[in-house]
């Protein structure tokens, strides 16, 4: 069962995916998102765009962390905290869904 509740706690074991209630456009290193629910636009930078790309299919947060640490110069602990904070903001904007903890 999926949840777009912004208070839902995201953990490394959470399964997350882009919500079906948004549309996005890639602009090279950046991505523009439109929430169809709130009619708000969002812009995300290059690392955020890479995470967004991964979110197009359901994925575990720990897997996102592993991909980002392998592609960028960042330690796993810091990366995990940043990824979770970023996902929490996406969730609060209705742009992703949490599909449970595994």
């Amino acid at each position, binding site marked *: 069962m999926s949840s777009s509740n912004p208070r839902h706690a995201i953990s490394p074991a959470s399964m997350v995916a882009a919500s*079906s209630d948004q*549309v*996005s*456009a*890639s*602009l*090279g*290193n*950046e991505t*523009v*998102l*439109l929430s*169809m629910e709130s*009619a708000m*636009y969002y*812009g995300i930078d290059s690392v955020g765009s890479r995470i967004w790309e991964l979110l197009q299919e359901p994925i575990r947060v720990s897997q996102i962390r592993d991909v980002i640490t392998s592609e960028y110069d960042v330690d796993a602990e810091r990366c995990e905290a940043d990824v979770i904070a970023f996902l929490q903001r996406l969730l609060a904007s209705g742009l992703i869904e949490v599909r449970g903890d595994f």
Partner: protein
Amino acid sequence: MFFTAAVSPSDSALRQALNAGIDLDELCVLAEHEKAVSIVWRHLSRVGGELGTDRHQRLRQSAMVSAMHMLRYQTLLRDTIDLLAAEDIDVLLLKGAGLAFTAYPLFTDRPMGDLDLLIRSPNGFRAWTLLQTAGWFASDVEIESKRFSNHHHFPRLAIGNGVYQVEIHDRVLPDEHPFRFTVDEFWARALNVEANGRSFRVPHPMHQLWHACVHFAWSHQMQWGSWRTFRDAAWIIEKSGIDWKEFIAFARKTLATTCCFWTLRLARRLAGAQVPDSTLDCLRPPYSRWMVDQLERHFLASVLPSVNSCPSAGLTQRLWEIAVMPRWSGHGRARPWHVSDRWRRGGPDGESNRPSNASLTARIRKAKAGAAYLVRASRLAVPMDPLGQTFAEAE
């Protein structure tokens, strides 16, 4: 500019073009003119093209706005389809709206200026009226204009501040078109595609490619919408794997061989569309290679607004007739400038299409400019291949 229309343009060819001292301001202007900014920006970002700070900011900002525009169109399309479906009105997504779902990886990869929706004939007016209950509106000018009386779509509707527009079509081309096909053929082979949790109906890829060719070569007289058309052709071919035997047969049956030839030849030349030599051989008008090359140079000079474009609307029309061969093609007296809105408004540069009252001196000056243009066009260098490959010339 056309490198960015290719499916997978060569990065080295793109860098080479950027380093060759092209006018970057002109590139930005052309990108905006062709509604291509978000795509041009994406390619330039990828190869790290050095644009200069001001230009970089301007293009980036413009690309963002363009992307937002496309996202809004995607949601408007979804809402419109829902509205019409609730009333059991079938919709076929024409041109950009259909291609965005079928030929391109993402909807936003296909910039568009409006949504074109084909509705079965008895329901066209009902759909047009229904949309106006959902915030879409037609300007008085659009409604009162008599030029829509025999047009293939109802007066254009807009929403919000008028930036977003939709056209409800009940036919694919204006009544006066010379092509032997019926809109039922489009409906009969339409496909369903799933996107955004909904099902959309789109024309068969062969019909999409045929429509792109005819719309550009005939309706637009090979003068406008070139970047989008060549890019569409390249992506349709890449994504759908056209059955060329079937396409050639349909082009022949519909009297559209020369229109398809010129669009596909130019799309191959400028956007690297993977059109086989054998297909062009089957579609080409009965001219020598030299003649085809000369006509191609004229079209290459005209596909984007430039100081090198043909200076005379009359000469442009004559060259179009030589290339498309309407009588040989079976088009009779039908010509696009008899129906085209743009020509009725006075041509691409505001030049009137009506007989001129100009003095003899002015006419001689114009004739000289036309002759100078023909010489200039015949010497035009054929552009680099965007894929960094070489095609054998069709003989």
